[in-house]
């Protein structure tokens, strides 16, 4: 299978002043194939969000390499990074905070379109189409993020991430701030979008049950390392590590 994303031996050390350096991510290697849905699970503080920030280049890596669609983006900057963001987009944990409070949802969704050469009218039409695709009424594009519900805001965030048709969508705890029914709605939306647009997903989550019937492959992270890897069924039915068993037990 063709690889859309490959991380090789990623390491991240946080160094803050005179405090003890913190090794957040330690020798993490994995790949996401084209059209594949991969889950990265682990408890809070296991380094999964840091991994997301490393591969999206929102944080600088200490060591290791990142390849996106065959191109190395480990130290990409400026135009090169902008091109990389055409291929990967992210949906963030807290829907409302991931929008500028002084911009409307429509502006937020259209921003990447405008940055990539769409005229204002084109971007507006495309925004309306995207919102519909994500199950939002187009009138909501004039709303500010704090005026809509968390679920609606997360749908808008997904619409924003889809705007420039990325090949890889990274979802960093994208449903954990939402209640269970909305969570289910968002998951089915993601499922439908994946069928229609055949994107790859990297799904970062602490809830193993949520990913069970959604993801093709599961990576389990603990203390900054990947401790277990396999298909969702394998990992959940026959966990090899005690830690994975514990994660599963905590849900059941």
């Amino acid at each position, binding site marked *: 299978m063709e690889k859309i994303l490959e991380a090789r031996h990623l390491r991240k050390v946080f160094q803050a002043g005179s405090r003890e350096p913190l090794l957040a991510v330690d020798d993490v290697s994995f790949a996401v194939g084209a059209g594949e849905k991969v889950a990265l699970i682990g408890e809070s503080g296991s380094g999964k969000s840091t991994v997301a920030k490393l591969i999206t280049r*929102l944080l600088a890596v200490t060591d290791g390499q990142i390849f996106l669609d065959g191109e190395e983006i480990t130290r990409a900057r400026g135009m090169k990074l902008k091109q990389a963001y055409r291929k990967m987009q992210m949906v963030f944990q807290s829907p409302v905070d991931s929008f500028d*409070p002084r911009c409307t949802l429509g502006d937020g969704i259209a921003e990447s379109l405008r*940055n990539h050469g769409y005229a204002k009218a084109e971007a507006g039409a495309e925004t309306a189409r995207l919102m519909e695709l994500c199950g939002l009424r187009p009138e909501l594009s004039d709303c500010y993020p704090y005026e809509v519900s968390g679920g609606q805001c997360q749908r808008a965030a997904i619409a924003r991430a889809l705007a420039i048709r990325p090949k890889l969508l990274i979802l960093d705890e994208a449903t954990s701030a939402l209640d269970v029914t909305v969570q289910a709605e968002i998951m089915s939306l993601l499922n439908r979008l994946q069928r229609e647009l055949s994107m790859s997903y990297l799904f970062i989550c602490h809830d193993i049950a949520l990913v069970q019937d959604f993801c093709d492959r599961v990576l389990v992270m603990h203390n900054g390392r990947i401790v277990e890897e396999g298909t969702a069924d394998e990992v959940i039915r026959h966990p090899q590590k005690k830690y994975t068993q514990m994660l599963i037990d905590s849900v059941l």
Partner: protein
Amino acid sequence: MNEVSVRAPKISRDRLKKKLYFFSLVAALLILAAFFSEYLCPYDPYAQDMSLAKAAPSAQHLLGTDRYGRDMLSRVIAGSFTSIFSTLALVGFITVLGTIIGVFCAWAGKWIDTVLMRLADMFLAFPGLVFALAVAAVLGGGVHNAIFALAAISWPKYARLARSQTLAQQELPYMQAVRMAGSSPLKIIRKHVLPNIAGPILVTAMLDIGTMMIELAGLSFLGLGAKPPIPEWGSMMSDTRNLLATQPWVTLAPGFAIFLSVMIFNLLGDTVRDWLDPKNRR
């Protein structure tokens, strides 16, 4: 009314709006009056008439006359031009300069940030009056140099505020989304950072108008600002302070003008702050 609320009572948006319009209108009138002060004076503010010197308030001279027989009302009105426009120029200048430096520091980081912020600390360490005295000694007195002296020691406040606000914005989750949308740093600053940090900076500037007006008047009072015979409220008070015991109106008139203008701008600043407070939105 048996509704129980645990939150602090919100000022109603409508009332706030009325308040905002009212104080904006008053401030605008004050600024307009200052701009057209030349035409509003009943007498020439420079015309001396010794036979009328130190006259008490009367129907002809509502605020009396000073020791050269100049009409006080005309001088107070004419003085508004220097006092108000120097203050506005000063506040506008330090707000823009400080914001640019602050945002730049936050964005550039590293040694540029350190160097500029230590420079800001240095300027903050100067006592205003002493610095103004030094400037006056080197460049001579005059309104321009007084403005320059106050600007030199006041911009760091805005630079620090803009810097800390920008750093706070950079930490917010939406900033990552905006970066991933492929926006250039300049666009991020223009479209996202500036609108989000404008509130606190604007409020600081509004509330600073009063302070700066007093500081400028203070420098003029010491003879470091406007030079006589140019009418300016601070220097007028200084001119006439010997008469306070016998003809108090000549000192009180410019003093009251300062008090009134400072109060109007402070109230406007307070209202703008309430208006921009996110807790009061909608």
